């Protein structure tokens, strides 16, 4: 490892993107992620890249579409209401199999909601917020260090599979300063984009076309089957998950992102009272670590999903545990964060 710095989460995302070879960023300001744009606005000219403050999130995601279709590593970022606006472009880019990275520093909703941390866009991210049968790889970091590593990873996964990859964090992560240790050199997946990227034919080949429309139903079904086959491959290859203290746990807590860090403290508190609590922390929200939950399904007395929403990931936990153990839920909304004590109380209530 190389340089070690104290940096803000949002700035680390932008720095990581540049280190991953991203030279094109298009975005529209929205709290609590705008430092990403500030960082790019300052740094892109230094590295010969492009920063555009678009007229809207809709325009920004379509600039991403154009740039990705033209073969570039490209990124946009926003927060919940802005990500809703991007859904049209996300669906089109998914249909056209364009690789790009989208960051959602989630804030609480619905509507304009508030600017405080939340995880209420889980469904939108993993179940398809736009129209049609498509998937994005969704990565949920829990520290500034992981923001860096997973942002680099997101670009590689996007290019490897021609898919959109989303980094999903929240305002805690985006605004928090932590130490981050950068590698001297990134491992970049070098994709051969020559068969599809629109860079000009140079009169040397047939034209390349980027499109998501297939009017012939048989052709469109085949296109969908191809997409689905790709998604199955990603489910096979790209699941990332942290398993902590689960071997003989009384209760296994499922939590992602910043909530998982709170849960780790709860695990220490519980241990002092003789309660064994484990943690399964999905790092990829899609593909969901189904097999990990299957493996531990009969270990604890019960599962508890703790989230900053009304109960979203809990549905995937239930599907994965598949009735082998009860799955409980504890969540806070509106930007409220659960205390360690309230989570511990919930665990005790379950074990009663």
């Amino acid at each position, binding site marked *: 490892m190389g340089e070690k710095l104290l940096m803000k989460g949002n700035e680390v995302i932008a720095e990581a993107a540049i280190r991953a070879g991203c030279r094109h960023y298009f975005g529209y300001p929205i709290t609590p992620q705008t430092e990403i744009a500030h960082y790019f606005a300052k740094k892109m000219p230094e590295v010969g890249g492009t920063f555009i403050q678009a007229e809207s999130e809709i*325009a920004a995601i379509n600039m991403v579409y154009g740039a990705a279709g033209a073969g570039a590593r490209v990124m946009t970022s926003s927060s919940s209401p802005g990500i809703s606006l991007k859904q049209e472009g996300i669906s089109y880019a998914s249909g056209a199999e364009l690789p790009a990275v989208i960051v959602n520093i989630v804030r609480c909703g619905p509507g304009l909601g508030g600017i405080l941390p939340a995880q209420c866009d889980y469904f939108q991210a993993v179940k398809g917020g736009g129209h049609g049968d498509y998937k994005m790889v969704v990565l949920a970091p829990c520290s500034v260090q992981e923001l860096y590593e997973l942002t680099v990873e997101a670009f590689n996964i996007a290019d490897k599979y021609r898919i959109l990859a989303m980094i999903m964090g929240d305002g805690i992560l985006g605004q928090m300063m932590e130490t981050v240790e950068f590698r001297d050199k990134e491992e970049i997946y070098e994709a051969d984009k020559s068969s599809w990227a629109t860079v000009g034919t140079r009169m040397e080949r047939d034209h390349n076309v980027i499109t*998501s429309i297939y009017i012939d139903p048989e052709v469109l079904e085949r296109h969908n089957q191809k997409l689905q086959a790709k998604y199955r491959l990603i489910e096979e290859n790209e699941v990332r998950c942290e398993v902590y203290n689960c071997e003989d746990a009384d209760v296994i807590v499922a939590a992602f992102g910043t909530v998982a860090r709170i849960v780790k403290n709860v695990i220490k508190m519980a241990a002092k009272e003789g309660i064994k609590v484990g943690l399964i922390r999905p790092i990829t929200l899609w593909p969901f670590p189904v097999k990990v939950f299957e493996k531990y399904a009969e270990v604890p007395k019960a599962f508890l999903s703790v989230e900053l929403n009304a109960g979203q990931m809990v549905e995937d936990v239930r599907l994965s545990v598949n009735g082998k153990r009860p799955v409980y839920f504890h969540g806070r909304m509106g930007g409220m964060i659960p205390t360690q004590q309230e989570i511990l109380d919930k665990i005790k209530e379950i074990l009663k």
Partner: protein
Amino acid sequence: MAVVFKRPHALRDVPMHYCPGCTHGIVHRLIAEVIDELGIEGKTIGVSPVGCTYNNYEYFNCDMQQAAHGRAPAVSTGIKRVHPDNVVFTYQGDGDLAAIGTAEIVHAAARGEKITTIFINNAIYGMTSGQMAPTTLLNQVTTTTPYGRKPELHGFPIKVCELLSTLDGAAFIERVSMHNIKNILNAKKAIKKAFQVQMANKGFSLVEVLSSCPTNWGLSPEKALKWIEEKMIPVYPLGNFKGKDLEV
């Protein structure tokens, strides 16, 4: 035997799907001729819209992207910023450009994006079967203005060239028409100039083409051309709005 007429190289050898009497095909040909004459097919990237020409990526030999409804100027911005030495054009209808995509075209022009937009104004939505367009004339009957477009209910036609030519980033803006040979030849000159303005890095360029839609206007092809001349041109005067004397 001398060849007196042939397909431009930039136009693919495939049948087009347009209705009889529709002038989209002629505009496609003019663009292709200009691409050939400028020798830029190998470095041109076109962006198709949503509407009757959603699949015109099948008709051009250059690389193409298909954009969501109204978003072609944003998609083109992304392409052009990645490949500033390439030539990028959008082909958009009146619903695409002047309704759902108003923000994208205004801001692409305001940024002075070095792209060229060919804007087809036929005063109606063709693909979705004849609804009111932002450019529908007052009193014009459409499937969503069955009693005619009334200003108190439906507002007024949007004059895109007049609107965009107020923006400093717009370098070349011209309105042309497809209603007769003379005007078709003029249209080609304007399209060529618009591409040259882009290649000279002067800024955003747009050519508005008054076009016919016999099917949805309920007119024969011949009467449709007359309708452009008699009804549309008085509302949408032809001519250059900006950049006439630009050196390219």
